[in-house]
């Protein structure tokens, strides 16, 4: 059961202006005290005050699979919590913000303990549907983000999750449809 909220210290590295089809973005960075690995967190700023959150290992920055690769570092929880802290900073800074993320399908070899305690390797290549990452993110969101403040909405087929600020939904009941429409028209792969 998730009860504590341990996270790493992070910093805002840089603001990036919109270039081509890339939205305005912010880059945050933090270092894991467990693995000594540095992570990059990208916050993408879309219309309708919608912010997409993504993260990957800095060492995977140039990889096309940076959001899919299994790291086997066993530190998902504090890493996810750090991303949530960044999201909450924006929540406080921008009082009409809503958020979203995708639980990318995992690719790679998972190293885990068998029932007998032996380390075993399992090859994984998930598609977009209801991914392992997505299921974990969803449970964390339900635990830590009140449905009184944000409407939690999901698309399991694409493993996509959105937190739509209820105060904005009251102003515009079609906000969820508008955001869906924007992403469906702008990003063919919805990623």
């Amino acid at each position, binding site marked *: 059961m998730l009860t504590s909220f341990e996270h790493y210290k992070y910093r805002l590295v840089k603001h990036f202006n919109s270039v081509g089809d890339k939205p305005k973005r912010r880059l945050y960075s933090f270092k894991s005290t467990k693995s000594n690995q540095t992570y990059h967190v990208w916050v993408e700023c879309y219309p309708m005050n919608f912010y997409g959150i993504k993260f990957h290992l800095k060492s995977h920055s140039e990889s096309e699979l940076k959001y899919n690769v299994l790291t086997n570092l066993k530190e998902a929880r504090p890493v996810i919590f750090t991303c949530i802290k960044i999201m909450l900073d924006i929540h406080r800074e921008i009082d009409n913000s809503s958020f979203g993320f995708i639980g990318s399908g995992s690719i790679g070899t998972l190293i885990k303990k068998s029932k007998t305690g032996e380390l075993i390797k399992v090859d994984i290549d998930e598609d977009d549907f209801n991914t392992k990452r997505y299921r974990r993110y969803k449970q964390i969101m339900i635990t830590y983000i009140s449905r009184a403040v*944000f409407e939690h909405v999901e698309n399991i087929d694409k493993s996509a999750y959105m937190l739509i600020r209820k105060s904005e939904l009251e102003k515009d009941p079609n906000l969820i449809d508008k955001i869906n429409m924007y992403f469906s028209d702008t990003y063919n792969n919805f990623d």
Partner: protein
Amino acid sequence: MGTSKTNSNQTDTKSNFKLTPNGNRLYEFTKVSDEDVAKLRVKIHAYLV
């Protein structure tokens, strides 16, 4: 013999998704319900917001 093409139980895979006015596939989102939350067995809510 056979089943009427208008039978509502039939599934037409082409109509399983909606399109945006611009002709792109619309990825629809659904609200996470109380039932969904119950399935997740989240017993302790530690809301940060």
